[in-house]
């Protein structure tokens, strides 16, 4: 299983998905209309490393994080 967590203002608990690629994560998250609108705004990290490509295979135990727009300072 892959854990997907939602950081900052996305008011949603982590979920577990039985997927093996980022592509599949995307497909799953798009089913949730509330999450759908966040997807184009969010950066993605796998195990706390921000990734820039979608063509990534996931292992069981991987953690995918969604990072919405930021404003530190």
């Amino acid at each position: 299983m892959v854990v997907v967590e939602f950081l900052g203002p996305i008011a949603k608990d982590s979920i577990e998905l039985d997927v093996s690629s980022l592509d599949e994560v995307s497909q799953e998250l798009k089913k949730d209309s509330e999450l759908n609108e966040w997807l184009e705004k969010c950066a993605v990290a796998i195990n706390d490393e921000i990734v820039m490509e979608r063509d990534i295979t996931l292992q069981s135990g991987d953690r995918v994080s969604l990072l919405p727009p930021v404003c530190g300072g």
Partner: protein
Amino acid sequence: MELFNGALDVPEILKRWYIEEAESNYGAFIPFIGTVRDEDGIDGLSFDIYEPILEKWFNSWVEKAKDRGAIVKLAHSKGDVLLHESSYISAVFSPKRRVALELIDEFVEDFKANAPIWKYDLIDGKRVYAESRSQKISGSGLLN
């Protein structure tokens, strides 16, 4: 890198950093201090930080600064910071003036654009995500 619950004690932090590097032979020290402005009827700001990625972001800047003979320091608030209190200090120490002036600009702008920190306005006791002032991190939209 230092994170604090609530507002920063700016004089204490600046003094401590200045003394820490007093013998390091840096000719230029430039801190940038961010303070909560009284505007739009807010009572203050509030911050969420995702620390593991902030740590990595900061460490990448430690390396970038080192390549130019400089060092960087960072302090930021978690949670609520009220009007006229400070939530943020980024600082650069460098042997030379030009490197310090260029680095503090790049460091502060990249912090704004990519540090995993979320800002909320405090309005009538509620936290309202400051989305219109927020920036998408590089690589956003990957799952869209």
